[in-house]
């Protein structure tokens, strides 16, 4: 067998503009998406599938909100924090959202430094992203505890329709799990970056494929997706 060369070659290819470029790509030889590594293509397709999962969750939530006969609790009141004796609606959620969106920024910077092969900065920014993500999960845990203390349970709550608690715990729980998994993988990738695994193309434990800095971008895709989903949850669950 001929000696193995890297599985991904990222040299820019001349592309036609606009729709013609898309058609040329799709109908072309060997690869439908030029210069897209396997891992990145796989992540995109996985995220498409995951989009359907979250869509199904959110549509189901909207359906039960319509089907239930009890009044729906007012999210601005339920998710209000009492600060200096004043009720501030959605304060915690606003901070959580701000933190998560900021983590998308640090992630994007990590990707940029990754492609510059700046190990130090990539490592630091990945860790900051992970820390922001962990903060988000921590604040979500605080929110859960507050609500549970207020008597909100998956099967019922004192404010109104039981489905409020069911949908809340299910959707934020599923999203929080995504964030937690993301934090774990951010830390894993950060350690790989610091150890120089991506410079030496050391094979990864999960894929068996050689490591490279495109992995940071693939990780980033997942992270941005999790943030984007939160925007929809925020809009459809908390603001509505």
């Amino acid at each position: 067998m001929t000696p193995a060369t890297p599985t991904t070659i990222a040299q820019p290819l001349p592309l036609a503009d606009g729709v013609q470029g898309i058609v040329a790509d799709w109908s072309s030889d060997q690869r439908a998406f030029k210069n897209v590594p396997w891992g990145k293509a796989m992540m995109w397709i996985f995220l498409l599938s995951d989009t359907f999962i979250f869509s199904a969750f959110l549509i189901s939530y909207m359906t039960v909100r319509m089907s239930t006969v009890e009044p729906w609790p007012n999210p601005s009141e339920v998710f209000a924090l009492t600060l200096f004796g004043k009720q501030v609606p959605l304060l915690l959620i606003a901070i959580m959202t701000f933190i998560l969106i900021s983590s998308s920024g640090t992630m994007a910077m990590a990707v940029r430094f990754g492609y510059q092969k700046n190990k130090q900065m990539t490592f630091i920014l990945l860790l900051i992203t992970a820390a922001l993500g962990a903060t988000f999960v921590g604040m979500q845990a605080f929110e859960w505890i507050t609500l549970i203390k207020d008597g909100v349970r998956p099967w019922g709550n004192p404010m109104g329709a039981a489905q409020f608690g069911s949908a809340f715990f299910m959707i934020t729980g599923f999203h929080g799990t995504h964030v937690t998994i993301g934090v774990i993988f951010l830390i894993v990738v950060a350690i790989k970056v610091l150890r120089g695994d991506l410079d030496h193309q050391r094979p990864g434990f999960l894929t068996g494929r050689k490591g490279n800095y495109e992995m940071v971008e693939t990780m980033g895709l997942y992270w941005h997706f999790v943030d984007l989903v939160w925007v929809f949850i925020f809009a459809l669950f908390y603001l509505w």
Partner: protein
Amino acid sequence: MAYVAHDASVFAPPAEVGEMELYHPKTWLGKYVWSQDAKVIGIQYAITAIGIGLVALVMSWLIRLQLGFPDSFSFIDPSNYLQFVTLHGMIMVVYLLTALFLGGFGNYLIPLMVGSRDMVFPYVNMVSYWVYLFAVLLLVASFFVPGGPTGAGWTLYPPQAILQGTPGATWGIILMLVSLVFFIIGFTMGGLNYVVTVLQARTRGMTLMRMPLTIWGIFMATVLALLAFPALLVSAIMMLFDLLLGTSFFMPALVSMGQQSEHAGGSPLLFQHLFWFFGHPEVYIVALPAFGIVSDLLSVHARKNIFGYRMMVWAIVAIGGLSFVVWAHHMYVSGMNPYFGFFFATTTLIIAVPTALKVYNWVLTLWHGNIQLTVPMLFAIGFIFAFIHGGLTGLFLGNVTVSVPLSDTMFVVAHFHLVMAVAPIMVVFGAIYHWYPKITGRMLNEGMGKFHFWATFLGTYAIYLPMHYLGFLGVPRRYYAVGGTDFIPASAQSLNAGITIASLLVGAVQLVFLYNLVWSYFKGKPSGGNPWNATTLEWQTADTPPKHGNFGATLPVVYRWAYDYSVPGADQDFIPQNVPAREVART
């Protein structure tokens, strides 16, 4: 002037990516058990799927025994009967056909037919199989828990699926739902691999429009599965919450067994929408690989190019897209806005257009072909028969006014068994007879094969044609016994008995097939590398069966489409895909 083939090139473009790295195990266990080779994983998938499928086959016998000869078998009580009906359906659709077509044939054929050394992420691919096996084991475990497996019907409709009184409402339904969740996780790992391999890891010269239709079918079915299974995953999670946490997503307030339930305000219709948003694409997840494979079987064994290749590809894509907007035709009697019924009936009938296009193209492929009545060809023709019959009754059932009186009768059972049980399983058999020589290096015994075909083909017709008539009489499905119902004549019972005898015989004939698989592995005629004189890449490998890495020292280079059979002027009646124009022998 020399004859110009449909789509052949003189040169192949240069390689865009380097050689794929392969993990070469050193131990026997690493090679054949914890294998990362897509071919071994495919065979593992196939054996597991066929194994659990045999369990479902036995359950179908028990269902038929009860229906054909009620009051004769004391060991089938009403609960058992419902459990058999449920598990038979669920296993056959999800754990057998989906796993066999995508996990089995997909793993074995995709890398070989697109000219790749393996799937893009072999480790993930291996984990996919083990998660699938775990899902199967969870399903099997549900037979041994208190109360047995769930008897809610394969659609698992709430509220009854999780109410006390339904068989298996304590443990069986939990194991069923958890097993489905694991099946979906396992499938997603494999499915991502199949899609990325087809899109990004083809060999030089293999454009998308030169891929064999087998790959197109499996590819599109995998895309459908990746987008449809999420709805099932979500509904399984929500039903588990209703069951274990006492939420009310699907559960309205109701009185069950004299007691007011603790649920209130949920929507049972929501589950039906989620389920069928998965359930209808699932039909095409099973059908599209069958469409693709049968196209190749017909072309190879009629020694003629497939008729209308590009239209066949577009039909697969169109069916895939349309399959997501027809789901509520399963819910005409569930209570929907009539305009919804109008919309879904229209889309359902539109999907018949690309489907009919495919049927015409299959028949036109046979037209003036040099038809070899080999066993795979017989099964392919059998598929066309079963699919046309099942498809036509589908048009009946797609119309709201016709569908409503026929809902939940034996007519529906006959329809979907012909179209998505008999038709795909014909292709499964045809495909196994076709590719067995590549997998083992030996031919399957032809005599046994022909007996297997005729007995299966005629036998399944003996089962399902009369069943349509039972449906017209109004015989309901899923009933343990109809007893002395006035509108059902006594002769319906004799028909039922006849169907039962036919189904027992068809089931028994499958033992001949299993025997053939084992016998031929040791004593079958050696096949050589390309016994069918086929053009696609898997028949051009250096070794048969292909070794890990598939193609020996160098990857094949593709110069033409997959259907150059009986090309005028060429010496041989087939030109493999990896033969450049200047090397075709002509006289």
